[in-house]
């Protein structure tokens, strides 16, 4: 853990808040300085920012009409040309347009799934680490049970049960990835709980909610943050895989659904490389970016990992 946050609370309430705010800002600045020294992390950040910009500016880069099959202007699986830089799909839509708009859905699902996974994982991790009695051990068992469920079979079944929508896909990924977060948060909580300042807070009569909310949560947050970026990477990969297996939202274009269409119309055998290479490369780039950021963050936060 980073050193500054470990200093015991000394002064009065108001100044504590100011003090800790200041400390956190300093810690953040130090962290950023540390992060900037990780070249691979910075490369990842650069790639991620580029994709996020593309996703946000999608309406400026390509008209949304390009997504409509009924308004398609190109021929079936046309190869790249001056008009269609990355060729067309089986309905005559520009692959580049699909790619740009697809980035929105892929990133959105990735983020949404991560939020779900993080909320559940952090909550259960915190509680199971904080409460040592039966409640804690039940939560721990619960986490363990979910951890052994084979991810893909469960995701496929849940996607079928819940139906095929954007949110459901995110939900499925979210509820199948939370246990590893929960375990991580739990072990962090366990070690923070034993620190002297928390004991002092307990002696001073701080309630459980106060202890968890004011002391433990802020301390596990950096780790949650690092874990989040890795979870985004896993979630985007999962979205792609589920969509490829035909479980994605059929009314929206994501990189995964593009690959599904490419596979089902036989882009490989008809030699339509422009249909199945770009979406895959985008997935690799974005997932790699998030992984690099996550690894760099972990190293920043945990000096033990340095040099990995």
């Amino acid at each position, binding site marked *: 853990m980073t050193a500054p946050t470990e200093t015991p609370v000394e002064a009065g309430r108001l100044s504590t808040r100011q003090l800790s705010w200041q400390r956190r800002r300093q810690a953040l600045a130090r962290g950023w300085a540390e992060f900037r020294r990780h070249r691979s992390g910075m*490369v990842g950040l650069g790639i991620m920012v580029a994709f996020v910009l593309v996703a946000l500016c999608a309406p400026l880069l390509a008209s949304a009409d390009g997504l409509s099959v009924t308004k398609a202007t190109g021929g079936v699986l046309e190869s790249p040309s001056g008009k269609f830089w990355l060729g067309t799909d*089986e309905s005559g839509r520009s692959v580049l347009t699909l790619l740009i708009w697809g980035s929105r859905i892929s990133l959105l699902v990735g983020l949404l799934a991560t939020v779900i996974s993080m909320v559940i994982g952090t909550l259960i991790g915190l509680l199971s680490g904080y409460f040592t009695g039966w409640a804690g051990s039940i939560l721990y068992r619960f986490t363990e049970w979910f951890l052994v469920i084979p991810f893909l079979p469960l995701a496929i079944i849940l996607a079928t049960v819940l139906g095929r929508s954007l949110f459901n896909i995110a939900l499925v990924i979210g509820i199948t990835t939370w246990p590893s977060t929960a375990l991580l948060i739990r072990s962090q909580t366990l070690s923070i709980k034993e620190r002297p300042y928390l004991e002092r807070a307990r002696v001073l009569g701080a309630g459980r909610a106060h202890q968890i909310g004011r002391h433990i949560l802020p301390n596990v947050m950096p780790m949650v943050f690092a874990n989040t970026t890795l979870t985004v990477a896993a979630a985007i990969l999962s979205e792609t895989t589920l969509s490829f297996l035909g479980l994605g939202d059929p*009314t929206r274009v994501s990189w995964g659904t593009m690959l599904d269409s490419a596979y*089902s119309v036989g882009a490989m055998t008809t030699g339509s490389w422009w249909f199945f290479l770009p979406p895959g490369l985008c997935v690799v780039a974005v997932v*790699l970016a998030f992984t690099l950021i996550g690894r760099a963050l972990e190293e920043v936060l945990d000096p033990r990992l*340095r040099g990995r």
Partner: protein
Amino acid sequence: MLLASLAPALSLGTPTSPAAAADKVTFTVAMTNEVDSFNPFLGIEAESFEMWALMYDYMITYSMDDMSPEPGLATSWDTSEDGLTWTFHIRDGINWSDGEPLTAKDIAYTYNRILDGGPESATWGSYLKGVTSVTAPDDTTVVLKTAKPNAVLPLLPIPIVPEHIWKDVSEKDVKTYGNEPEGGQPVVGSGPFRLVEGKAGGDTYRFEANPDYWQGTPHIDEVVYRVYKSEDPAIAALKKGEVDFAEGISPIQVDALQGQPGITAINGNSPGFDEIAFNTGSVDVKTGKPIGDPNPAMLDPKFRYALGFALDRDKLIETVYQGAGEPGSTIIPPAYSHWRWEPPEDVAFSFDLDRAGELLDEAGYKLGSDGLRTQPDGSPLGTLRLAARSDSDMDASLNTMNYFKEWLAELGIQARVDTYESSKLTDVILEGTFDMFQWGWYVEPDPQSMLSYMTCDQRGNWSDSWYCNKEYDKLFDKQSITVDRDKRAEIVKKMQEMLYVDAPYLVTAYNTIGEAVRSDRFACLRPQPDPGGIWLFQYGAYNYINMRPASEASECAGDKSASQATEAGESGGVSTGVLVGGGIVLLALLGAGGVVMMRRRSTTDDRE
């Protein structure tokens, strides 16, 4: 390293290509679905029907031209005056593959097993509906008695199984009886081929020619089916010559394959159609009370008919079906010319939004001040729910509805597209919580089944439009006892006209099935229906018996509809040098990934 270790497999792994097996002619077919059972009383997948056609014979088969009934094991048949007794005269001198004679007794035995009910009746029971008894007074005569005249007869596409084998399979055991080869012994049958290797759900099925087949020994020695999980690897295998035939391929692939040397690809007409169906009034079948929530306009035939002019069927064929298929009209596809009704000019739908608008105005669905149409009582029409199927190979469903939504918008009708898995949509249809949906039917050579789906009795069962019209039902009952084919066709046409105008279905397209054959290896395949039909997965085993290796193509040169041999195309040749080159390229590709990891500054704390 990995590649190198496997290199020895190279030289030995390839003799398996069909070209190397010079002594035997093997015809290899790529399929994308497995056989669900070789037991003809259990399977329901199209692939299984194809297998039975190779293994067994039928008393009556279908013609190649239009799938009308033709002699099979029965050489001829006659009907009694009252139409209640059918007598079939069975060919003599046919043997089962184990040497036992095939007689009328086997036929009677097979039919009686079905008549007894139980699992056997599930698939075949409908063909023997109304049949009270089947007997074999001697080895060459089968007599069928019916309670009332049955118009579907003599159509009996039931595989005949050997009594001396099946009598040991009890009614209870039949549900788990696989009918698969055991101990190297082929399954006992009488058809042109014998199943020597294969299991339900397996990925390879192998058949050997029956040298004593009564229609003549097939010109190929073996038929092998290989299951690929998707179309793409199947096509690649065809291109490389690992298989000789690919079935159920997309129009895009047919297009791409047409330019390939040694391959001939077609979009064959398939007897099926796609439709947009309306919820014409979902009810609880027991009480007759309405259930679900269809928009009231759906219940109005005038509204439905008007929308028939808001469908640009040509555009759908061109874009949604990638150019393969025919614009749809009635529920009997063109292949069944005997039964089909052609809508006359003044009734027939065309893409004419003005006409649609006029018809809607006349019916009371006028444009409101906001540019949207209203119900006849002046209240807003509301948003229509268009249900599309979202299974991954169902893009046509979603795209059809997307187009329809836009055409409806031009008429001043709001709509939205909802997507469901096929299995889920079935539930939605039964609950009646929809306005329209897109689906399709496969139509059998006899119109009986298809026509029955539109009767009142089928609501809550196979009817998906909830259509109910007493007049129609009367005609249905009448045609099912009209044994005279021409008279029956009159009624069947009248029924189609009724459906066309009442419009529970708007038929959008007649499907095609893409097929491709290595025409440098095999020839003499005839389409069914002829012309314009498909080569394999037909009714009957005609092509398996009559097709020939390309070298013997001259034998069928006189037959204009049969496929001809073409110049040789590429085949899967292997060279080790190429393999090594490929490995290097792959490694280079992966190495390029390393570029992502840019030079890192070494971290400060050197912990060593």
